[in-house]
């Protein structure tokens, strides 16, 4: 059996301080991974830094938001025939050393989408602030009910996908605050979704895209998106492997 071609999809917006390390860590972990950084029209030199560290860089001509940026990566993966993809954030909060954990179920053919969750194991290290914990728990419960399968962390951007998952998200991926809705879309499309416990680090530079003021918009938008997504019909996909 030949090794599956693997791509790491890394969206980045003004992450010149962290992106070099992120790319290095992935390559150090496994030099066979092709690293694709999607530069969402940064005003700093994120693209140049990523390129000088050996990543393939996709430069968006204007800022399209995290979802649109990530989707560019999935489209790249489809065009270039990758069988497996992992998605990590460009700020360094997803440790490359955790990649094998989320990759394992995809490699074994047991899942089409693996979510690196911070909350599978109640003893996990990550303790978000109260308000955020409530929000994450609420979305997780909603997606579990609407999607018909228990998930614990729908806001995680640390995921692994097989070809079926890549193709689904290349065609259909929400554009802002995408993770929660994407999880539901995957479930309703019939992808086999698994979650594994991962630890995430505090971000080293930059700031989270979710500021306090935007939180309300975030919650309302995601709720509406979930409602609409559960009313929509999605073509049932068959898992990549039976």
């Amino acid at each position, binding site marked *: 059996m030949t090794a599956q071609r693997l791509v790491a999809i890394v969206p980045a917006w003004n992450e010149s301080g962290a992106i070099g390390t992120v790319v290095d860590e992935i390559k150090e972990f496994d030099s066979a991974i092709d690293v694709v950084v*999607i530069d969402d029209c940064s005003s700093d030199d994120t693209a140049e830094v990523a390129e000088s560290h050996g990543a*393939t*860089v*996709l*430069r*968006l*001509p*204007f800022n*399209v938001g995290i979802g*649109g940026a990530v*989707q*560019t990566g999935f*489209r*790249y993966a489809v*065009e270039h025939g990758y069988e497996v993809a992992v998605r990590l954030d460009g700020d360094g909060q997803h440790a490359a050393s955790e990649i094998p954990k989320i990759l394992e179920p995809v490699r074994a053919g047991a899942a089409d989408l693996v979510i690196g969750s911070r909350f599978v194991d109640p003893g996990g290290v990550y303790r978000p602030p109260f308000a955020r914990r409530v929000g994450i728990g609420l979305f997780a419960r909603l997606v579990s009910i609407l999607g018909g399968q228990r998930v614990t962390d729908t806001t995680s951007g640390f995921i692994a996908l097989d070809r079926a998952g890549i193709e689904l998200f290349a065609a259909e991926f929400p*554009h802002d605050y995408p993770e929660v809705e994407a999880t539901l879309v995957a479930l309703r499309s019939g992808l086999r979704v698994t979650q594994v416990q991962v630890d995430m680090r505090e971000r080293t530079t930059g700031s989270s895209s979710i500021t306090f003021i935007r939180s309300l918009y975030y919650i309302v938008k995601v709720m509406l998106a979930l409602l609409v997504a559960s009313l929509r019909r999605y073509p049932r996909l068959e898992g990549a492997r039976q």
Partner: protein
Amino acid sequence: MTPVRVSIVGAIASILLILVVLELVRGRRLKERYALLWLATGVVLLVLSVWREGLNTIAGWVGVTSYPPAVLFAVATLFILLVLLHYSTVISKLTDENVDLAQRIALLEERVSRLAPPVD
């Protein structure tokens, strides 16, 4: 009964709207497909302004007894809401198309830069 002055002002305003929209289309500053709803608005308001008994009858149907021209305002408001809603769908479609184009450009640029690296 609707005051005659209201009917006259309503008719003039409607005709002005129709003329402005037609002129914008003629000057290619407004596409026909986006002019249609505006023209419909103008025509409906013109008809309701000129056809005074009609306005009275409709006012009776919807329970407006004291001041029939209120129906004129209500219809105008309804049409403006329709136009705005229509534009919201247009903007949404444009946004999606824009993102799609941006993504394609990013993918194509990466390909081109490998085939023909920029000359410094």
